[in-house]
């Protein structure tokens, strides 16, 4: 076991898969000589050369389209889109081509690409710090992964590169410097498996990506008040593995769903809806959501702080959802 950063975990996954499989190559803006705008691909050009680490023009449509076309012929491209905001420039390629190529030709072709991109950010204002995962999670034909820890980032990226279907792999700008333990030996984390990151009997917090980290901080805070929160990390948004969520709800009967996306029509809306459809009788209170406020991200520091969800808001939501028995729970504790 070594403790490494999320950034290093992603880089290790890319490097190991490139060593394992000659068909894997990288393409994207400034991933080579510049070293990657978040320095994820630093050193890979030197190790693998320009054939396999390809700097592209600022042409997101061409990056995704070319990756998809190469994948149709059997290669395993990993396309980096510098931030998730720029995927919008290529949304036609992603939704009308990548997600449809297997289906609309009756299963004749495959499109096994990975689109690596980055959500979140700070002090970058309205168009450079969005959390747009829901756009992709909505689309049949895509798989969408959003890991929270170095361990999951490495294992899930390796699984994504090996997957026969297209995967949108969403990293988080504020997680790159975070550290976690990663095994020295080879491992893969399967796509489509949620993970309980902390056990607790009183309330379930469902989260993914950076919000998993905030949820764990909130759980520590709640523990000081005698409340044991269970934290379920979705890890994959599509296909959504509701099993661990529903198991947890059956035990806690109270749920808070946390996302850095906007609340309306978001990931939390989907999770809450599934819970009421599949576990209505397990609920002792309405499912609550914690999300980014419904404004474009402001630049000003104070306004930005107000806009993004925090661990404190998660604590408050948990207390609210526990309102009826919070006294009893604390007394019992």
């Amino acid at each position: 076991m070594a403790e490494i950063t999320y950034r290093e975990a992603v880089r290790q996954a890319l490097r190991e898969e490139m060593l394992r499989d000659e068909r894997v190559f990288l393409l994207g803006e400034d991933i080579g000589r510049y070293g990657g705008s978040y320095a994820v691909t630093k050193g890979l050009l030197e190790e693998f050369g320009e054939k396999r680490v390809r700097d592209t023009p600022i042409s997101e449509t061409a990056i995704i389209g070319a990756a998809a076309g190469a994948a149709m012929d059997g290669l395993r491209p990993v396309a980096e889109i510098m931030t998730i905001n720029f995927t919008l420039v290529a949304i036609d390629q992603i939704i009308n081509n990548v997600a449809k190529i297997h289906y609309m030709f009756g299963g004749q072709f495959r499109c096994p690409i990975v689109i690596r991109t980055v959500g979140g950010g700070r002090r970058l204002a309205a168009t450079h710090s969005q959390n747009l995962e829901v756009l992709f999670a909505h689309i049949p034909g895509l798989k969408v992964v959003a890991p929270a820890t170095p361990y999951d980032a490495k294992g899930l990226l390796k699984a994504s590169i090996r997957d026969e279907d297209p995967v949108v792999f969403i990293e988080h700008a504020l997680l790159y410097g975070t550290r976690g333990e990663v095994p020295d030996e080879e491992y893969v984390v399967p796509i489509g498996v949620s993970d309980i990151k902390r056990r607790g009997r009183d309330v379930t917090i469902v989260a993914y990506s950076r919000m998993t980290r905030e949820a764990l901080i909130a759980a520590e805070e709640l523990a000081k008040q005698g409340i044991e929160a269970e934290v379920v990390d979705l890890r994959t948004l599509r296909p959504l593995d509701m099993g661990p969520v529903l198991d947890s709800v059956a035990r806690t009967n109270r749920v808070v769903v946390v996302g850095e996306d906007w609340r309306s029509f978001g990931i939390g809306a989907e999770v809450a809806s599934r819970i009421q459809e599949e576990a209505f009788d397990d609920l002792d209170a309405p499912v609550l959501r914690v999300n980014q406020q419904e404004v474009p991200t402001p630049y000003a520091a104070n306004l930005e702080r107000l806009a993004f969800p925090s661990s404190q808001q998660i604590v408050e939501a948990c207390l609210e959802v526990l309102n009826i028995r919070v006294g009893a729970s604390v007394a019992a504790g």
Partner: protein
Amino acid sequence: MTNERQEAVLLPHQKEKDHLLHLYRMMLLIRRFEERAAEEYTKGKIAGFLHLAIGEEPANVGTMAALRPDDDVFSHYRSHGHALARGMDPRAVMAELFGKETGVSRGRGGSMHLASLEHHFWGGYAIVGGHIPLAAGMALAHEYRGSDRVVLCIFGDGAVNTGAFHEALNLAGVWRLPIVFAVSNNFYGMGTAIERSSAVTEVYKRAAAYNMPGKRINGNDVLEVEATVRELVERARAGEGPSLVEMVTYRFRGHSMADPELYRSKEEVEQWKARDPIVVFRRRLEEEGTADAAELDAIVQEVEATVEDAVRFADESPEPDPDALFDYVYVNP
């Protein structure tokens, strides 16, 4: 099929004749196939959009005749002619229009999404210009592997004002990819005339912006199309990079079956119809003594029977199994 025409120059008269009759047969097949498809559309057997290429058959047939069987084709939503000229079974193409399981795309795609892995026919795409980056990506795969396959990417004059066209041609130019971009200039993007939509109406001139050769040819002369496309394909195969060929042609019918054609005059259409390229080609075959009227009439009869058989086959074929609704969304769900 490989270098059929090239060999024809060297080999005896019969080989040359067979090839010319093959071109005639293919153009007639496309014409008759589409006329019958239009009839079936009005009967309600074919639904949605049906885009006919009647009048553009030489460009359809000449491009396909210039390719090796293992070269790759990407086409757009007006692709019945390309599919037939590529050698796809008229029965399976018609069945796709009928939405049947026996269709080339198992009924999942319809008229706009014909494809055949066996024929390296990587699909008809219906977002204007959206497939051009895919084609560039497959050319990238050939370069990556050191394969001598070449990609032919076909689109209409309407596609050249999309961002996808620009990004893909620039990428192909920067990376010197083995691809030929073939634009069928029929002077209208749906109902908007090219001089109302393009600052530069001679599409081939745009090649200069991507550091590749551009050629403008008579797209209604099947032999000129075949010879030019072959030259450009072999140039790409020899590692000399991408090119753009503009095939000037005209569509006799509306944009789709729903088009009242208010944007062009009857006189203009009649002028082009008076120079019907299939009639012109037949006259040439007769005048040059390649074939007599009886031989050519026999081909007409043969094509008629092929198309009637295709319609019957499509009509009698089963619809997809309702239990298969979710097939092909993912390779590994």
